[in-house]
């Protein structure tokens, strides 16, 4: 059996007396574009932050390509990239310096990273801004630079929390194309979004999370069947499933 790109087993996380994630189990095979949907406060971001190694789970395990994110954190992190919904950059660094720093953190060969940075900045249309401090950047430019930072160490698993927020139509299309291309090369994408049209068009498989649990999981057709609404849009399916849960 193929090792899953991401295997979450019985994940539990609570803050105070409230469960943010409650016995969540999910397995995503390599090369899949997976969307994680859910209403506000459902536990999507908490789950992704645990997967990325930013939060410690109370109970449960997370494996990335078979590497436990606690006991083999170094190996798991080396092949993973996480892009939060509001990425924080260094206002007093320019894009080249930012990417140089990220490449340093992941111990990427400097020559290879420099070439990769140039390609990424040109592709994301930030090349002209490469010597400007990021403090003057718009939200979309910051999002694009953070994406470049996520890609510079060529991860196998890309985790994105609301990646298209703040991007203009042109940039959003470029990012969507890039994600499709990334998956086509055998890599894995896990993304959360409130823009259901993106999940509908891009994701091969969709998980719906509510109150910290997966309430539905499958392809769009399978979700339609689960919700008993054949031919319905993902929006209707999503509303049916989350209202029923």
């Amino acid at each position, binding site marked *: 059996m193929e090792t899953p790109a991401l295997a979450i087993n019985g994940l539990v996380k609570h803050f105070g007396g409230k469960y943010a994630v409650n016995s969540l189990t999910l397995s995503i095979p390599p090369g899949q574009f997976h969307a994680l949907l859910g209403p506000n406060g459902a536990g999507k971001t908490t789950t992704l932050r645990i997967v990325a190694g*930013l939060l410690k789970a109370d109970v449960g395990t997370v494996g990335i390509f078979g590497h436990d994110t606690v006991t083999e954190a170094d190996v798991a992190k080396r092949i993973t990239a996480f892009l939060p919904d509001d990425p924080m*950059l260094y206002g007093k660094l320019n894009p080249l310096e930012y990417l140089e*720093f990220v490449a340093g953190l992941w111990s990427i060969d400097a020559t290879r990273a420099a070439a990769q940075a140039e390609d990424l900045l040109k592709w994301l249309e930030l090349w002209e801004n490469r010597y400007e401090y990021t403090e003057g950047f718009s939200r979309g430019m910051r999002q694009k630079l953070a994406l470049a930072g996520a890609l510079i160490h060529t991860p196998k698993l890309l985790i994105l929390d609301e990646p298209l927020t703040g991007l203009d139509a042109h940039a959003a299309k470029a990012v969507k194309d890039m994600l499709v291309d990334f998956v086509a090369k055998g890599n894995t994408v896990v993304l959360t979004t409130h823009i259901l049209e993106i999940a509908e068009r891009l994701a091969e498989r969709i998980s719906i999370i509510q109150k910290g649990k997966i309430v539905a999981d499958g392809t769009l057709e399978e979700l339609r069947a689960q919700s008993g609404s054949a031919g319905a849009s993902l929006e209707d399916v999503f509303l049916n499933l989350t209202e029923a849960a």
Partner: protein
Amino acid sequence: MKFVATGSWPWLLRHELRLAWRNIGGKRVWLVLIGGGFIWACVHFVAWGLLRGERVLGNTDFQQWLIPAAGAALWLLMSIMVSQTTAHSVAAVFDRGDLDLLLASPLSSRSVFAVRGLAIALAACLLPFLLLLPFAHAGLVSGKPGLLSIYPVMVSFALLAAAIGLWLTMTLVRLFGARKAKTISQVLAALIGAAFFLLSQSANFLPREQQASISAWLKHETQNGGWFAPDSVLWWPVHAMFGDWLPLVVVTVVGVGCFWLVINFTHRRFVSGTQETLVGGTTRSPASAASKPVKFRRGMVMNLLLKEWKLLARDPQIISQTLLQLLYLIPMLFLGFKSDRSAWLLVPGFVMITSMLAGNLAWLTIAAEDAPDLIGTAPVTMNFVRWIKAAAAALPVLALLLPLTLYWLTVDAYAAFVLIFCAGGGMISAALCQIWNPRRGDRRNMKKRYQESRVVSILEGLGSMGWAAIAVCMNNHWIWLPLAMALVLLGPGAAWFVGRDARKAGALT
């Protein structure tokens, strides 16, 4: 029932005061107020003791030096207030997100600017009020009601200081644009704050003959008819505080008038300045000279160090806030290069200042990390990253001490050893407090550091004091070593103990 009309400047002032009250802690402040109130009552008692009868104020010889001394102290106070109001003006123009809301409302920009100015003046006069009002109140019960003039004089001083701070900031905005003005005004605020200290220390660098001649000149000028004589116009603020009507009227008119003029003539510049900062614009980094091929440096450690140093060096706010400590260090460094044994006395001072400086920088590099998510997802342990960040904070401070240490090696190797040993110890102690008790901070609000992590700040201070005390012990005062060692261990030790939960929770990530 409404006491003030909605949308009027008193209404806006009330709103500002409410926000300020909540920012300083709201209801918890009552506890501080009760404690502080008790101390303040004691100061009243001391003031009453000083003013009682004619023993003090009625003495002519005493008045001969009291007026110049009090006058000089008042101008020193004014310089500190101007430094404070300049820093607050920068914040009022550059850092207040609610300006968009206020300036988009039907309120006049003059009202918004005036209220900002009044808030700045109020903040500036709080400390002087605490120190001087006991004398006004004690004067009332000691038969000197004229001292109640301290109230209008201090208000006028605060308004004048606010006017100067605002005018300076607005002028810099007009001359250099918003971004450069921010840097320049923050550095200016630090320089103004340290000006009196530097001036007072400058005499130490002069030859003894020149020091004597300056002293003689000052003495001569304090005699009747001299520049600094008790009846000099320079000291009118002191006379005004004693209730002399002409100086009082002049001081009040100057304070209120300058404030009114600045508000009326610069409020439009205030609007354009704030809009310029809100719109943003780009700043090009120093490496923008030419389109050269992209080259990255190798190695995680070097990249981490360089990133921290770039962020420290490029942030004007950080420069201005650490500049003050550097400015205090400069006279000591000069004195340290004097070859007599008195230099030994400076070692504890060096240890204290460099530890504080390293502590501030360690807070910036460790606690005030801008992108903790990025660091947290990197394949490197957080503890390793924190140690590199501590090194990034300590190395520039050690570099500052290096020339003096090398010089001392040639004249007194043991003193050089004690200096570098204790200063290094103090820096490591300050860094340990940050590493072992990690609390997230916001580098844009460095001043709030002491409010947000009081415990760490106190523990850092204890560690610094301990290492300064060890420096004293190593100069043949070994008997105090156990006490010094206790302080050295207490600072980081307590930080380790109270930081257990923060470390366990993986704070900063």
